[in-house]
């Protein structure tokens, strides 16, 4: 029962939050926090649990954004249906990338994700008859207020968490961990490493595209620099690492800290923002390299260990 107490409390707070807080900026901030939590959770499944670092997840984000927006603008298809189409498209896009690069060991996957995202961005940029090129795409339909979007992204993020949780608690959890720790040893013990990596990349791409599609419908305007930008890929990584890579809650905690902070730094000084932000991350990495969740866990176990030691010495 105690195990369920914290999540249910958090659930109630998250549900009533928009009814209590009327401030539009705080609501917007919450939407962005939840969006980056979704992206971080998706990235973490591949990067944290499986150890396959992607620097190019913006490719899937942008694909989700463009697919649902184009379906809406060209064919009048609801963006919520388009979101699903975009996610499937991103999943299909991830398959050749994974199939080609996951056979190689070492940094090849990480490097090719960089190139991959750039290729997709350049294609979208130049295919202006379809995508509107650098001018971007405008959605003039009213898709609802910020409270509605808050509940939608809350549901999507919870869905991503449930799927990621189901993955890592099943036998896949053992496989992914083993692949991250030592791929040869995992293969030798019967783990289909390449297939598992391709599947996890596909799941990860699927949910990131959902995030991209949501972002487009929420912002009502997209262009290649906005949704295919490397900053998007980087932010997913930062959120995950700060929160705790390879933990389920990590990216959520990371988003809760990083998204408001980067907003705050941006409001301080638009020019110095990247500098301050970068410094913050360096300092963070120096003092909490395992991320907040693992750091807190270690602190707690150390304290319980200390208490146990006291008991032992007291009884002696």
């Amino acid at each position, binding site marked *: 029962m105690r195990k369920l107490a914290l999540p249910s409390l958090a659930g109630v707070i998250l549900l009533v939050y928009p009814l209590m807080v009327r401030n539009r900026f705080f609501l917007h901030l919450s939407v962005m926090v939840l969006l980056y939590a979704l992206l971080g959770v998706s990235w973490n499944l591949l990067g944290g649990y499986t150890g396959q670092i992607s620097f190019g997840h913006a490719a899937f984000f942008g694909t989700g954004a463009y697919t649902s927006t184009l379906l809406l603008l060209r064919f009048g298809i609801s963006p919520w249906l388009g979101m699903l189409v975009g996610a499937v498209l991103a999943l299909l896009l991830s398959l050749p990338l994974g199939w080609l690069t996951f056979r190689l060991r070492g940094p090849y996957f990480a490097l090719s994700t960089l190139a991959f995202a750039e290729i997709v961005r350049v294609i979208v940029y130049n295919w202006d008859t379809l995508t509107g090129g650098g001018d971007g795409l405008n959605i003039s339909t009213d898709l609802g207020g910020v409270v509605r979007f808050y509940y939608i992204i809350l549901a999507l993020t919870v869905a991503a968490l449930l799927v990621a949780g189901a993955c890592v608690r099943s036998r896949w959890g*053992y*496989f992914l961990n083993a692949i991250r*720790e030592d791929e*040869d*040893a995992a*293969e*030798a*013990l019967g*783990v289909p490493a390449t297939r598992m990596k391709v599947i996890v990349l596909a799941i990860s791409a699927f949910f990131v595209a959902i995030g991209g599609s949501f972002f487009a419908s929420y912002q009502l305007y997209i262009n290649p620099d906005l949704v295919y930008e490397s900053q998007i890929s980087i932010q997913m990584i930062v959120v995950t690492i700060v929160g705790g890579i390879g933990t389920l809650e990590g990216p959520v905690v990371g988003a809760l800290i990083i998204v408001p902070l980067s907003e705050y730094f941006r409001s301080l000084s638009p020019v110095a923002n990247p500098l301050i932000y970068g410094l913050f991350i360096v300092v963070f990495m120096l003092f909490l390299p395992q991320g907040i969740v693992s750091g807190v866990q270690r602190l707690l176990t150390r304290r319980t260990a200390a208490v146990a030691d006291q008991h032992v010495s007291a009884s002696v």
Partner: protein
Amino acid sequence: MSLLQVAGLTCRFGGLVAVNRFDFAVESGEIVGLIGPNGAGKTTVFSLLTGFLRPDGGHIVFDGTPLAGMAPHEICLRGMVRTFQNLKPFPRLTIRENVMVGAMARTAERKLSTRYADEALELMGLADMANRMPNELPIGHLKMLEMAKALATLPRLLLLDEPYAGLTPSEGAQLGDLLQQIRKKGVTICLIEHVMRFVMAVCDRVVVLHHGEKIAEGNPTAVASDPMVIKAYLGRAYAGS
């Protein structure tokens, strides 16, 4: 029919012929030793058998099925599993979780896989430390862990790459008994080892590899006195005496 039948196995690295037309068979229930000087190609043979390297020629038939083109995990699930010469624990998993990986690959049913893992831990004497992390264990136990991980996949043929090296004398003495117990459970064993005393004590049969070629084969005592083998290990001067 033999459990494992290898014919004409060949592997080249550039100009170097690491394994040359190697013929080899393992019968069900045997403990076979694969010996030879450093660089003879023993580990390469293991890597070829388990799909980590693609042979340049030859056939491998395991349990009646040709293994050509199969990935390591497929070969493992068919019942042939290897350990590595350099230890490969999963450092951030507990001992039990380490062993669970292979058991989970064998069956999706958690009840069964937990049983396989527990049996392997018990057999290798690791049950007491199942919740510890690998870095808390001494080398001897880590070597047992490697074998437990492999056993949890329920192999029919276990390939051990230098299981004796690095053990203390008392651990080494236990290893012989352990291998007999593993054999009693119906697992055939093929091992690479340098320590001749150990090989002579536990192996029913040995195969000697030198420069990638088989130079001798037979019961351990006969092979140890074979002039060809002595020459390969110690040089020509000792072969005549």
